[in-house]
């Protein structure tokens, strides 16, 4: 059942693979990450507050999904549910068909800050997954090999000359690269990222985006990337999911406070950004303009405008040379 019950053409409706009743009965085993009808209510001072409601989402292995939405709409809350540090009020979350429990190494996270251990150097931070997982004797036995591997990862992230620095001595971009490398060594099934580049200046932010894309292309990791920056989302992801603060239930025509996954834009017409090349396409800018309308103004959902290409220069385009310049051999 589509919420494009009027206004939108059938063609437009096709662009949006909306949550339907049929999807609801999908087997959790069919996707790597399966979020079903999740609701999260916080008890606040002024009564209960519904932060997430009717959230349905499925992520397949190897996807790069970006979750966009305005500040305070519940993006971090959804990540906490996926991590397992908090439980949903109702609904269910599955990873690989297994119900999600407490935080464990199958789900890794990169935060905007507080991700690194302040008392460990970059190298020690990257080695932490091994140190925490291995017994002392095992660690002693494999120490040499593992340190070698960690140094190789740091080299890829252009951090090798900073390996003995503590997090506070690293720049914001270097810290985030260290955090990403720590997670790659950890090797989770899905890598969650909560506005990881939000605190960086525009220049390092762009370099980090290219760096992350490169890693994603080389490793095929499943990435679930939260941001409030639509341009970042479209540039990076194969699929953009928009979480809005206000949610209009089209089936009952009721305005409900809370949020839901508004649209689940599949790769294809809207989520063009699948290969690096197509990201440089003028259509990309159009995609952003389009998403601005649907993502942040739910009322306009039915009025998908013609793409306005005059806004093309408002977006910084990364040249293919820039992307290739950062290409590197990545261990599988």
């Amino acid at each position, binding site marked *: 059942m589509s919420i494009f019950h009027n206004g939108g053409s059938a063609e437009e409706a096709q662009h949006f693979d909306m949550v339907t009743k049929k999807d609801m009965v999908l087997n959790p085993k069919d996707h790597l990450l399966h979020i079903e009808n999740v609701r999260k209510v916080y008890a606040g001072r002024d009564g209960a507050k519904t932060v997430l409601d009717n959230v349905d989402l499925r992520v397949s292995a190897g996807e790069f999904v970006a979750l966009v939405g305005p500040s305070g709409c519940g993006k971090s809350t959804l990540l906490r549910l996926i991590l397992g540090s908090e439980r949903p009020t109702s609904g269910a979350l599955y990873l690989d068909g297994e119900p999600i429990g407490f935080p464990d190494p199958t789900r890794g*996270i990169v935060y905007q800050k507080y991700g690194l251990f302040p008392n460990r150097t970059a190298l020690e931070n990257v080695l932490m997954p091994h140190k925490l997982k291995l017994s002392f004797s095992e660690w002693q036995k494999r120490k040499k090999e593992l340190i070698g591997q960690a140094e190789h990862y740091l080299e890829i992230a252009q951090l090798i000359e900073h390996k003995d620095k503590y997090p*506070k001595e690293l720049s914001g971009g270097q810290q985030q690269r260290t955090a990403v490398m720590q997670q790659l060594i950890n090797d989770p099934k899905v890598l969650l990222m909560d506005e990881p580049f939000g605190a960086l200046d525009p220049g390092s932010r762009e370099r980090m985006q290219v760096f992350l894309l490169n890693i994603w292309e080389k490793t095929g990791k499943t990435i679930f990337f939260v941001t409030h920056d639509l341009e970042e989302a479209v540039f990076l992801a194969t699929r953009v999911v928009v979480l809005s603060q206000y949610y209009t239930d089209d089936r009952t025509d009721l305005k409900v406070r809370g949020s839901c996954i508004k649209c689940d834009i599949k790769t294809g017409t809207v989520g063009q950004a699948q290969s690096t090349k197509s990201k440089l396409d003028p259509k990309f800018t159009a995609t952003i303009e389009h998403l601005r309308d649907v993502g942040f103004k739910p009322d306009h959902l039915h009025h998908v405008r013609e793409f306005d290409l005059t806004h093309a220069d408002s977006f910084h385009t990364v040249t293919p040379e820039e992307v290739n310049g950062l290409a590197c051999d990545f261990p599988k």
Partner: protein
Amino acid sequence: MRKRALLLGIHAEPPRWLQIVYMSIVPVIAIAGYYWISSNYLADNPHGKLLPSFMMMLRRFLVLTSFSGIDFELNWVWGFIPVPDITLIGSLFWGDTAISLFLRLLTGLTIASAVGLILGLNIAMFRTLQFLVLPWVTVLSFVPVVAVMPILLIVLGIGEEAKIVLIILGLVFIITLSMYEKTREIAQELLVNARTLGATDLGLTYRVVLPMVIPDLLQTMRLNMGIAWYCLLMGEAIAAQQGLGYRIFLFRRVGPDMAGILPYVICITLFAFAIYYLLGCIERRLFPWKTDGEKQ
């Protein structure tokens, strides 16, 4: 352009030599003032003991510090903690210092900080302990140690144990509560991250969190050294045969021997300051990763 002020004003920026001059104004006035009062007093009472001159103090102090040999003996507190008993034969001052600093203060500090660290860390990490232990640690931290002293003397006698336990009691609850607070201040995100990296309960507590709060332990010890000294001198004043605190109170009874008391007070202050300063240096030296002020 206006010249920078040397003496007054918010933006005063005196050069280094002037800073030193400013710093010495207070001690110079204090010393000169005492010298003046003391010489007037001694002119009126040539055999008076209350306000000795600096020369009298120095002479007395040299007598107290001179020694002719070292007697070393290993004692055991509670049968398992080795404590060297160093007696510098003939030197009251150094003997007292060794006993007070190395036997009583150091043992008390070590035990109090080890127990406080482990207890505070575990209370913060394991929720059950927050009900089981935390309220009672908080209540106990309000019990004035001086009030418990008679009980300690009755139960433990007047040996070393009572005096060490007094220092432990004075510090252990403060350190526990401080370690609890510091552990709770660690960003939740970091703990969740450690979990996703495979940390177990014990791994999280002892491999991730413990190393992060050690600098806070040193800081807590440094800022509460005053309490440790207070407990030490209290214990020694009431039941001891040796020690810095014991000696001061003894000098009061025999005399009063002000020329002996004053150098002791000055030295105790210097020791306390030296330990404070040393702990500060160790903190900065051993933990270069620690951000001062704002959290990471």
